[in-house]
């Protein structure tokens, strides 16, 4: 047991919406942390996990074509009067998201929309879930 930097062995990449707290959670707790069976041999109980593989390969021909499309949109927007960068940005981003979305991401996004309100409330009270005894 040691405190050190885990090797960057993450490998796969996870496409996901930019503002989803759930995606951050998935990034961290499915991928990192101590693995129980490194310590325990006998009493492990196998429980079916719904979140088996959240990985999508991102760098591919599709990614390249998507960038080319984005450049195309860029050229269109350059020919228009400036002053609407926010709008152009939003459109570009929306388009990109549809192209690269993986199944898990899509599900996560929907669920996180659904849970947004609950989550906001929990974030506001993001509180200590434990305390320490007085020594």
């Amino acid at each position, binding site marked *: *047991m040691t405190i050190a930097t885990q090797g960057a062995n993450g490998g796969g990449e996870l496409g996901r919406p930019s503002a989803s707290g759930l995606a951050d959670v998935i990034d*961290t707790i499915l991928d990192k*942390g101590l693995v*129980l069976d490194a310590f325990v041999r006998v009493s*492990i*109980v196998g429980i079916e*996990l719904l979140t088996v593989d959240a990985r999508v390969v991102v760098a591919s021909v599709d990614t390249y*074509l998507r960038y080319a499309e984005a450049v195309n949109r860029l050229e269109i927007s350059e020919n228009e009067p400036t002053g609407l960068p926010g709008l152009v940005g939003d459109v570009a981003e929306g388009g990109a998201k549809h192209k690269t979305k993986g199944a898990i991401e899509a599900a996560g996004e929907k669920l996180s929309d659904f849970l947004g309100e609950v989550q906001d409330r929990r974030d506001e009270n993001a509180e200590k879930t434990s305390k320490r005894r007085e020594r």
Partner: protein
Amino acid sequence: MSAAEDTTDQRSGTATYVYGIVPADVEPEPDAAGVGDPPGSVTAVRHNEVAALVSEIQVGHPLGTPEDLRAHAELLDGSARVAPVLPLRFGAVMTDVDAVTQELLSPHHDEFRSALDELEGRAQYVIKGRYDEPVILREVLSGSPDADRLREEIRDKPEETTRDARIALGEFIEQAIGAKRDADTRTVLDAIGSLAHAVNVRPASHDLDAVHVALLLDVGAREDLEKALADITNEWDGRAEIEVLGPMAAYDFVMKREPEQEG
């Protein structure tokens, strides 16, 4: 006289979900909610100076809903605000509480305790930056004759005839953004300097990631971190958005030492 009785019997078993390891003086708040539906109530199983945060779950009930994932993370991250925590990867389940004591805590007591000592007063933060696509595209395209040539080749032509050029342009962009990401990650790490006790550069989790790093900091260092990043945040205004997550449990910095694999 019914099939219902059979199914009930098969699904009535319980097991113990394990979240992480903490010092024995840690006490879960009474309303701390665990995984499962309804959420299990979280307790500490203690053995000498260490404890495991656990809750009871139903066997035969799959885990991994968004609520389950959040419950796991929130319990450990909330605990990491007040105490060192060795987080287990999501999905760790043991037969019962006795097994937690006898197979997990007792044989590894000293190992856990010394790791917790090392983590005392520290927690993990994650910095995520995301490029604004139009802005970063302009940045990587400007002043590149290769890109200009490819764009010229594509411009005003039907898609079917320009596939190769579009792929070449996209590949150029992907690599150029990768180089920006490397440079921007170095800039961020330089700005953080000695604030971090340890750093883990995470693989990009999105095409437009500008930076994605986990840091081991003093648990209360969020303000210092934001101060250290202030110049970059201002400079990147409109180009990339930076987000700081934490404090959270030190997921990126705990690992089992494998004697047979390490020198």
